[in-house]
């Protein structure tokens, strides 16, 4: 029997997770995390966990399960480490995932540390992922229900944290979780899932960012630098985005244009054809290895670049600066700030934040159209110590093919780790 803190969001998943650990004989204390400084009184839309209604749902779940219940105020670290981080990352032209950051900094850091200090042995959440515990270490695996798998957003927690994390829903399909909740008579059995970013009240992330950062008008240009239109803030665009560009001049080939990169320093959004989004090499930093130690050398892996992205076959090589990922199938529209998660089959090996990308042309993408237009030069000079992709060649910019190998092709400035 372990003494565990169950983080109850007020939703069905965490409720059933707490119920299962209680039924298994553990001594469970329920905690609701107050993350918002000014919680709305009622839940709206699909954003769960931050309203007073959600806090009350969590309290009622604890009542029904017979668990002690407390509210822990984590609004300050959440504001600092998740919300402010989200804003400053976007302002710097990067694309962070706040759920991942919340797991890294709040749920399995601030909450877990507080729980351990208070004499608990670990933290239970309703995440869909599996933890396999061997005598030596804990392993993180995908959930049995692929549609609900959340191993991606958990791939940033350390071995020490993982050993004290319990995800009792990892082997269960969501439908069964709801049935189980209904069987326990939990009022949240039919509560809708939450999808969107919890702190963006109406789901309009660009609008929310505009409120925080103010309008910052700037140009939308093509790869040659020709101005095609204007925007109200480069931060509102993400790489790969096609809609909402409001360009006045059609592309020469008549095909849709996508955001290729966001240059924060010059507040410029660069657009171009879909083919120019292609990336087959990624540099990541700092890598996190779930096992707690780096792999001995390059290894084959499936790399997932978004929470619900398709894993791509790749070779992952630890480097002095971080990690290099050579994709065997190219990815489209990858932004720095995103997290690359490395899988061995269904097991999570590690993760890294994307700091630079390149299109070397070595990936198996035969038949894909080649971008004939030269890319604009990167806005920022490479800072000292930045990752230097060793593979020369740049298939999408023939006139630079032999010289630009040192530069990351996707134009977002690399994060200085």
């Amino acid at each position, binding site marked *: 029997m372990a003494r565990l803190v169950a983080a109850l969001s007020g939703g069905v998943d965490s409720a059933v997770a707490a119920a299962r650990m209680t039924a298994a004989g553990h001594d469970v204390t329920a905690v*609701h995390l*107050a993350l918002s400084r000014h*919680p709305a009184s009622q839940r709206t839309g699909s954003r769960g966990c931050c309203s*007073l209604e959600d*806090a009350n749902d969590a309290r009622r779940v604890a009542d029904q399960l017979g668990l002690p219940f*407390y509210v*822990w105020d984590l609004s300050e670290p959440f504001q600092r480490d998740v919300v402010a981080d989200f804003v400053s990352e976007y302002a710097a032209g990067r694309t962070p995932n706040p759920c991942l950051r919340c797991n890294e900094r709040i749920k399995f850091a601030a909450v877990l540390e*507080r729980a351990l200090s*208070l004499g608990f042995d670990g933290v239970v959440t309703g995440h869909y992922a599996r933890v396999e515990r061997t005598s030596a270490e804990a392993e993180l695996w995908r959930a049995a229900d692929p549609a609900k798998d959340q191993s991606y957003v958990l791939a940033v927690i350390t071995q020490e944290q993982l050993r004290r994390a319990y995800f009792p829903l990892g082997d269960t399909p969501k439908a069964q979780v709801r049935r189980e909740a209904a069987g326990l008579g939990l009022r949240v059995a039919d509560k809708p899932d939450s999808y969107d970013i919890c702190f963006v009240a109406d789901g309009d992330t660009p609008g929310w960012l505009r409120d925080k950062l103010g309008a910052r008008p700037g140009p939308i240009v093509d790869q040659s630098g020709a101005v095609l239109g204007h925007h109200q803030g480069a931060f509102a665009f993400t790489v790969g985005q096609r809609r909402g560009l409001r360009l006045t001049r059609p592309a020469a080939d008549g095909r849709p244009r996508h955001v290729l990169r966001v240059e924060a320093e010059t507040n410029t959004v660069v657009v171009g054809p879909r083919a120019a989004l292609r990336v087959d090499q990624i540099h990541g930093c700092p890598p996190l290895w779930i096992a707690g130690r780096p792999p001995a050398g390059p290894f084959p892996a499936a790399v997932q670049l978004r929470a619900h992205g398709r894993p791509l076959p790749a070779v992952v090589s630890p480097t002095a600066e971080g990690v290099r990922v050579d994709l065997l199938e190219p990815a489209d529209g990858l932004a720095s700030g995103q997290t690359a998660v490395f899988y061995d089959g269904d097991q999570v090996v590690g993760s890294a934040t994307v700091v630079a990308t390149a299109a070397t042309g070595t990936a198996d993408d035969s038949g894909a159209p080649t971008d004939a237009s030269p890319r604009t030069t990167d806005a920022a000079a490479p800072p000292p110590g930045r990752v230097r992709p060793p593979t020369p060649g740049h298939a999408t910019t023939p006139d630079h093919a032999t010289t630009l190998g040192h530069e990351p092709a996707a134009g977002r400035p690399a994060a200085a780790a």
Partner: protein
Amino acid sequence: MPQAMIYLDHAATSPLTPTAAEAWRRAAAVVGNPSSLHAGGRAARRVVEEARERVAERLGAEPQGVIFTSGGTEADNLAVIGGARARRAGDPGLNQVFVSAVEHPAVLEAARALRAEGFTVVEWPVGRDGRVDLAAARQSLAAAAGTIALASVMWANNETGAIQPLAELAPAVRAGGAPCHSDAVQAVAYGPVRLRAADDDGPDAVSVSAHKLGGPVGVGALVARRDFPLTALSHGGGQERRLRSGTIPAALVAAFAAALDEACDRRQDEARRLAELSARLTAGLGGLPGVVVTGPQDPAARSPHIVNAVFDGCLGENMLLLLDAAGLACSAGSACAAGVARPSHVLTAMGHPAEREARWGLRFSLGVTSRDSNIDALLTALPAAMARARTAGGE
């Protein structure tokens, strides 16, 4: 629960006494609305009026001065807002309201709400001991003479137990031409709470609540002198001198009166008994490194049932969780609607920093069930809880 709970939170609510429960049961058997004109109505009305007379007698009021309410908060709102509005209705120049900075939110927030109506609200500072700074209060009253709507100063503070210098303040308020209200919710069971007679030093109105003294939750009263002006805050059938509409809960009122009688009969013995327990607890806390008992040093200046202490580096909410798990119930102050613990405005007003000591306080409050063994159990559990809470961070 791992074991029987040790209840040290009587200032939050105290158990219903058998006497009060029996009074409730008997009155609840009477079928009739006290406002109905038939025999059943008259029977219920009789229950209410007998209760009113008992409450009035205990608190030195005339029966028509007892306005039954849903509890202390409603009584405080009626006194502060209803009183200030009535005073200004009689003289538009009476637009200043004085309260202490350590009032219960029922008074403090009611007073602050008056600002939206054009009142000036002055919050008197308190000293390190949690008692109103008399010199500052007198000075501000003198400067405001002739414009004072009313003042409200609690009898005993609900967090620290500090007894406010009403004997000095109430006459100073009256000298400024205004009446003085006092929230006596925490004081009634252990202190000599009475309205002033013609020329003595008491307040002009007091708020009381049944469940702090052995009665049921959901009933209380504003008890006021005849000359304390009031206007209604809510509207309806005009019960309670048209000041508090709504069917009078005869059974609750009867249980309240019974509990008040009982508490007043036992007041001296119980105050002495709890003062001894508090002294033991205070001494024990003083012996623990990093613990400071707050409030007045002089036992005569504090209500005997409340002991508040600051535990250096230990978040009150963490201490509460740990003590709760050990079967000890105490209070870490108030929480917001979502359940998030807030720094104590009382400790803050006493000069404790909001992000440190004001979040490190715990209140232990004693009552009818408290015994020596409870104090022993608490003092035994505290060192381990403190050691853990301290590693969990407090800033």
